[in-house]
């Protein structure tokens, strides 16, 4: 330990500080050029501001489990008829007097749900329509290795059918089980909020056919839309909020039994 070593340390300190300051200065010089590269992104962000943000409300107090929505969805979106492939389906939850919960969904609810538990054993019974929750932070989008599934600028999770390689990672990643592998096209398929309808000003097929208005579809940004009114009127919840997916399908009257 001598004065020489001390000096060396001091020199090193000055050298590092100088590089740090110089680096910051250099970065500030480069920054204006970065803006040129970014303008493109900014334009798309401006586009985004004018686009709607689609969402859906599900009123469990009105759903009667008739299965019309499931049937309509299968017709509208060419979903295979087998009772294994669904873009949307309806489950019947039955809480028995002894606390046991029975969840049924024969053929997704097509043809109307039927209660299989005798009335005297039932504590409560209700229907829950399920579909893709169109998460803001979608796990399926993060899992896709090729960028074939994505969140469109108007907030709908879509699948690029020509780009999907059919690895089914997204199907495993979805915490709501809303995706399936289409046996005909061999690519992942899911609810698109009937994207071909909503972009033409129509309602999704399931919303169109619901006889009790249990499904409410609309633009979350439009303060006068039916959906925003529904959200103002009712205390709503999303499915699996602990997963932080920030989904855009809101349920009114959701019981704690629903998984």
């Amino acid at each position: 330990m001598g004065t020489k070593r001390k000096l060396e340390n001091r020199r090193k300190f000055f050298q590092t500080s100088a590089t740090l300051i110089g680096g910051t200065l250099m970065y500030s010089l480069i920054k204006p050029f970065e803006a040129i590269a970014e303008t493109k992104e900014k334009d798309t962000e401006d586009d985004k501001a004018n686009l709607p943000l689609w969402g859906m409300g599900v009123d469990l107090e009105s759903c009667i489990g008739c299965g019309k929505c499931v049937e309509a969805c299968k017709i509208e979106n060419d979903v295979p008829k087998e009772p294994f492939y669904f873009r949307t389906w309806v489950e019947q939850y039955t809480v028995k007097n002894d606390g046991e919960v029975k969840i049924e969904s024969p053929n997704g609810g097509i043809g109307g749900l039927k209660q299989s538990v005798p009335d005297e054993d039932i504590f409560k019974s209700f229907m829950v329509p399920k579909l893709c929750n169109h998460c803001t932070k979608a796990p399926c989008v993060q899992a896709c290795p090729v960028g074939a599934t994505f969140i469109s600028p108007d907030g709908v999770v879509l699948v690029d059918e020509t780009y999907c390689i059919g690895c089914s990672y997204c199907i495993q990643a979805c915490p709501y089980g809303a995706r399936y592998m289409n046996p005909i096209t061999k690519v992942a398929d899911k609810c698109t909020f009937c994207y071909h309808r909503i972009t033409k000003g129509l309602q999704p097929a399931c919303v169109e056919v619901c006889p009790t208005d249990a499904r409410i579809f609309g633009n979350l940004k439009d303060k006068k839309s039916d959906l925003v009114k529904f959200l103002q009127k009712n205390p709503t919840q999303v499915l699996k909020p602990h997963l932080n997916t920030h989904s855009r399908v809101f349920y009114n009257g959701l019981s704690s039994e629903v998984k």
Partner: protein
Amino acid sequence: MPKLIFRLFLSFVLFVSVFIFIQQHLKPDSFGKYGHYRANAIDDNKMRTSYFKSENKCKECHQDIYDLKDNDVHYGVRCESCHSPKINASVECKEMPPKVEGTLKFCGQCHAMNLGRLKKGVPQLDFKEHKQGQNCIECHNPHAPWELKEN
């Protein structure tokens, strides 16, 4: 600069430029416009055919039936809730008319007894007691259910 380092540098530049060249050619059009996906896929999703036409289309020809339904208890039920288009139906519904048989099974989709449906404003019937063996439309007009037909 030593020759070795120069060659290394040259091969590095070559490698990067070849990579960029290949990437430019393999990358599909519009990839990355909005994010890590093909922006044209949004248009692909818009291109599907819609089989369901919505009530406005039905009203063009069937305004009278629509008015009858709209002023009765089935006002909330949309035309296509019952008259759903047949699969493979073309744009014109006349070629494959969406006919409905008013059977117990069909009406029972909404009106058959189910504890999960009670108190939701939809009448519930035990079809074992209510006119068993008959079709609903033999007595009820589906567009105005309480205008009972005389048997």
